[in-house]
């Protein structure tokens, strides 16, 4: 409470105190959002972390006397652009994280090293070049016509031609997006066999997908086909199955553990306890009746 009132007093006093408090609160939030975006596994979580960063950046703009830009940041970036991102994420489907196959060996480590090096260079350069330079402030420039009026004055005089160019850019972007996202096929129209064959020949894989459960140890459809090196064959498990489940099955298989209890993965109604019975006991179809099931299970337990 005391810190809050101190903050309020500092903010009311204006000047550097309030700005300092806001900076030291918002800067860690912005950094946490950025790091969370890079680290989080799901793309939707990344988008939400980025919203956090963008909101705090909007606050920074407002603190730095660029109120108009701050509100544009919040409305356009966090409102429109991030919603567009989420929209496309939902259209492409929530993928189960990134692929773990490293195409270039050691790429992540090198990326981190290069990133830290870049930041180190820029920060030391900034500190040496600027040090404790203070800012002139926009108050004088904004005083003449007000915050928005002065921006408009500059935008529509000195920057009129670039401003007109942006309109051409935006129209081009809109037309381009329509061309790229346009589907030739009407919804509900069936593709012919010829079209499907051509599509398949053009795709990466002409042969059928490997069947799930190729190593015939489990009836779960989360069971992946394994490549000779023990990794999961891509495409051998339905996209609807979470990749973590397949990894779990493959790990258990590699460890030589029983897979029976994992078979209930895609049959939520079947608890993990009674799989062993079902797997070992082949139903005798002559005498198999629905009413028998509970009693035999009870006896087995």
């Amino acid at each position, binding site marked *: 409470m005391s810190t809050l009132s101190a903050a309020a007093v500092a903010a009311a006093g204006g000047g550097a105190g309030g700005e300092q408090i806001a900076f030291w609160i918002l*800067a860690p939030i912005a950094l946490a959002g950025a790091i969370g975006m*890079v680290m989080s596994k799901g793309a939707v979580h990344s988008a939400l972390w980025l919203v956090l*960063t963008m909101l705090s950046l909007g606050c920074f703009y407002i603190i730095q006397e660029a109120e108009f830009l701050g509100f544009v940041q919040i409305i356009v970036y966090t409102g429109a652009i991030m919603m567009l991102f989420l929209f496309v994420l939902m259209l492409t489907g929530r993928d189960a994280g990134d692929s773990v196959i490293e195409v270039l060996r050691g790429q992540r480590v090198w990326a981190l090293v290069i990133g830290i090096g870049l930041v180190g260079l*820029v920060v030391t350069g900034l500190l040496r070049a600027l040090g404790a330079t203070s800012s*002139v402030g926009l108050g004088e420039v904004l005083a003449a016509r007000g915050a928005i009026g002065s921006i408009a004055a500059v935008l529509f005089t*000195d920057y009129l031609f670039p401003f007109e160019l942006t309109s051409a850019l935006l129209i081009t972007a809109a037309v381009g997006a329509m061309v790229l996202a346009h589907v030739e096929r009407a919804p509900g129209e069936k593709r012919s066999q010829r079209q499907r064959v051509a599509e398949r020949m053009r795709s990466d894989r002409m042969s059928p997908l490997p069947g799930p459960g190729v190593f015939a140890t489990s009836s779960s459809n989360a069971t992946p086909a394994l490549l000779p090196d023990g990794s999961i064959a891509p495409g051998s498990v339905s996209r609807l199955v979470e990749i973590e489940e397949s990894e779990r099955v493959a790990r258990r298989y590699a460890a030589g553990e029983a897979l029976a209890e994992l078979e209930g993965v895609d049959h939520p109604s079947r608890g993990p306890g009674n799989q062993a019975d079902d797997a070992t006991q082949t139903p005798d179809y002559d005498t198999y009746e629905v009413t028998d099931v509970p009693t035999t299970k009870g006896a087995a337990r």
Partner: protein
Amino acid sequence: MTPTHYLVLSALLFGIGAVGVLVRRNAIVVFMCVELMLNAVNLSLVTFSRMHGNLDGVIMAFFVMVVAAAEVVVGLAIIMSIFRSRRSSSVDDANLLKF
């Protein structure tokens, strides 16, 4: 509060975004990292504008936002069309640049 504080924060955000572009495989997340880098540059532009008492930096940040919006629209449409032909939005899968 000196401009250096803001500029260092901006450099950090830019670096995190750059590392994200290099590390992540999902094309949409890579795109978000590019957006983060643009935002970091915007922060430094606004800071420079205030540092020199001149509105040019604010205008420049404004233009960066417009260009970023156009870029996002076209980029996401490209990602959508790649996803439609390949059923994947991983940058490793789009390696032949064929439709």
